[in-house]
C-alpha cells in the first residue's frame, strides 16, 4: 500500500513541480509570446468548444485514421509479398530504403500535384508517409520467421492462407507493431503539416491561423491540445499493443528471467 503511494508520489512529483514552475514563472509575464499559463488555460475551453472540435479536430483525426489504415494494410500486404521471396526482397530492398529515407513531409508538394488540396491529398500524404516503416518492418519480420516453426507447419500440412494467418503474420507481429508505432508519429506530423500547406479546416490549419493573427494564448492552447492528442494516441497504441502482443512480452520476460 505504502509502496503504491510512493510510486504515485514519485510519478506525480516532477509534473507538479514543472506545472507550478510554468504557472508561477509566467505569472504576470509581459512577454507577448509567452503568456501566463493561467491565461492559456482560461483560453483553452473558450477556443476548443464542441463546435471547433467538430469542425477542425474531428476532420483531422478522420484523415489521420483513414491514411494510417491504408498505410497499415498496404504496408503489411506488400511487406508479406516482398518478405517471403528472397529474390524480390534483394531487388526491392534498396528502392524501399531510398523511399523510406525521403523525409515524409516533402511528399506534400508532390501529392498536391496529383491530388489537389482536398481531403484526398491529405489522406494520401499520410498514407504515403506512414507506409514505409510498416512495410520495411514487415519485410524484416517475415524474413525472420523461425525455421523450426516453418518446418512444423509444413509437416502438419499448414500451408497457404492458414500458414499466413497462423505463422507468418503472427510471428512478424512484434516487428509490424514496431513499424506501426513509428508510423503513428509520422502520421501525426503529416496530419499537421498537410494542413499547414493548404486547408480550410483542421487542427494544423487552425493553429497556424492563430499564429498568423497573433492570437498567442489561442495558439498555445492549440499546441497544448496537439501535445495531449499525441499523448492520448500513444497511450492508446500502447494499450492495444500490450494486449495484442502479450505473448511476446511474456516470452521475453521468461527468457530474461532464465539468464
Amino acid at each position: 500500500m505504502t509502496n503504491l503511494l510512493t510510486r504515485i508520489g514519485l510519478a506525480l512529483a516532477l509534473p507538479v513541480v514543472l506545472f507550478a514552475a510554468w504557472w508561477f514563472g509566467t505569472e504576470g509575464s509581459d512577454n507577448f509570446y509567452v503568456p501566463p499559463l493561467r491565461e492559456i488555460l482560461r483560453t483553452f475551453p473558450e477556443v476548443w468548444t464542441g463546435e471547433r472540435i467538430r469542425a477542425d479536430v474531428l476532420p483531422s483525426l478522420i484523415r489521420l485514421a483513414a491514411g494510417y489504415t491504408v498505410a497499415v494494410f498496404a504496408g503489411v500486404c506488400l511487406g508479406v509479398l516482398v518478405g517471403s521471396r528472397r529474390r524480390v526482397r534483394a531487388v526491392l530492398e534498396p528502392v524501399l530504403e531510398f523511399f523510406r529515407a525521403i523525409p515524409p513531409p516533402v511528399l506534400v508538394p508532390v501529392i498536391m500535384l496529383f491530388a489537389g488540396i482536398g481531403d484526398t491529398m491529405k489522406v494520401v500524404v499520410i498514407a504515403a508517409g506512414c507506409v514505409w516503416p510498416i512495410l520495411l518492418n514487415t519485410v524484416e519480420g517475415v524474413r525472420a520467421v523461425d525455421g523450426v516453426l516453418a518446418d512444423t507447419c509444413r509437416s502438419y500440412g499448414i500451408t497457404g492462407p492458414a500458414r499466413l494467418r497462423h505463422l507468418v503474420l503472427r510471428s512478424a507481429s512484434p516487428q509490424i507493431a514496431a513499424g506501426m508505432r513509428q508510423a503513428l508519429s509520422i502520421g501525426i506530423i503529416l496530419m499537421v503539416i498537410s494542413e499547414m500547406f493548404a486547408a480550410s479546416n483542421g487542427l494544423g490549419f487552425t493553429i497556424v491561423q492563430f499564429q498568423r493573427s497573433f492570437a498567442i494564448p489561442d495558439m498555445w492552447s492549440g499546441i497544448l491540445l496537439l501535445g495531449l492528442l499525441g499523448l492520448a494516441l500513444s497511450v492508446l497504441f500502447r494499450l492495444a499493443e500490450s494486449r495484442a502482443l502479450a505473448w511476446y512480452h511474456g516470452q521475453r520476460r521468461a527468457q530474461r528471467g532464465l539468464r
Partner: protein
Amino acid sequence: MPAILGLSGLAGLLLLVEVLPYTGVVSADFLPPTHRIAAALVDEVAEGAFWSALWDTLVAWAVGLAIAVAAGIAAGIVIGAVPLLRALTASTIEFLRPIPSVAMIPLAVLLYGTEIQSTLMLVVYASFWQVLIQVLYGVQDVDPVAEETARSYGLGAWARVRYVLWPTALPYVMTGVRLAAAVALVLAITAELVIGAPGLGSRIAVAQSSNAVPNMYALIAVTGLLGVGINLAARGVERLLLSWHQSVRGEVLV
C-alpha cells in the same frame, strides 16, 4: 549477387519513371520522365544556390544533432545512474516524448522567424528523445555485479561512469545516435519546407510554387539520397566504434 539484384531494382525504378509518363498513366506535368529529372538535377548541381541550400541543411542537421546527442547523453546518464531521479522523471518523459515536434512550428516561427534557430529548435527537440531513451535503456543494462565490484574496489562515481556504465551503454548510445541522425534530417527539411528557413526544404517549396516540377523531383531525390547516406554513415560509424569497443574489452579481459 545481392548487390547486382539491388542495382537492377534501382535501374527498374528509373526505367519505370522514364516510361510511365509516355504510357499516359500519369501526366508528364506531374511526373516528368527520368531524363528530365536528371537534367534538372544537373542544372541544380551547376547552381551555387543549390550548394548553399545543401550546406544550410547540413549545418542545421549537424548542429541540431550535436546538441541533441550531447544533451541526451548527459541527461540520460545522470537520470539513469540515480534511481531516485529515474523514478521522478519517468512519468514526465513518457508524457513529453509523444508530443509531436510539429506542434512547435508556430512557436518557432514566432520566436525566430525564418532563421536557422527555428530549424534547430525542431531538430533538437525531436532527436533529443531518441538519444535519451536509448541511453536510459543502456544504463539500465549495466550488470549489477560489475557495478558492485567497482564499488567494492572503491572506484569513485566518475570512475564508475567511465569504466562500468559508459562501456555498457555505448552500443545503446550508438543506436540512439543513428535513430536521431535520421530524425534530425527529417525535421531539418520539414522545418525548411514549412517555415521557409534556408535549406533544401525551402528550395523544394520554391520549386513547387514556381511550378518547376522536374527540379522539385530532383531535389526530393537529393533529400532521399542524403537520408540513405546518413543512414549508411551512421551504421558504418556504429560498427566501427563497436568493434573497436569489443576489441578494447577483449584486451582488458586478458
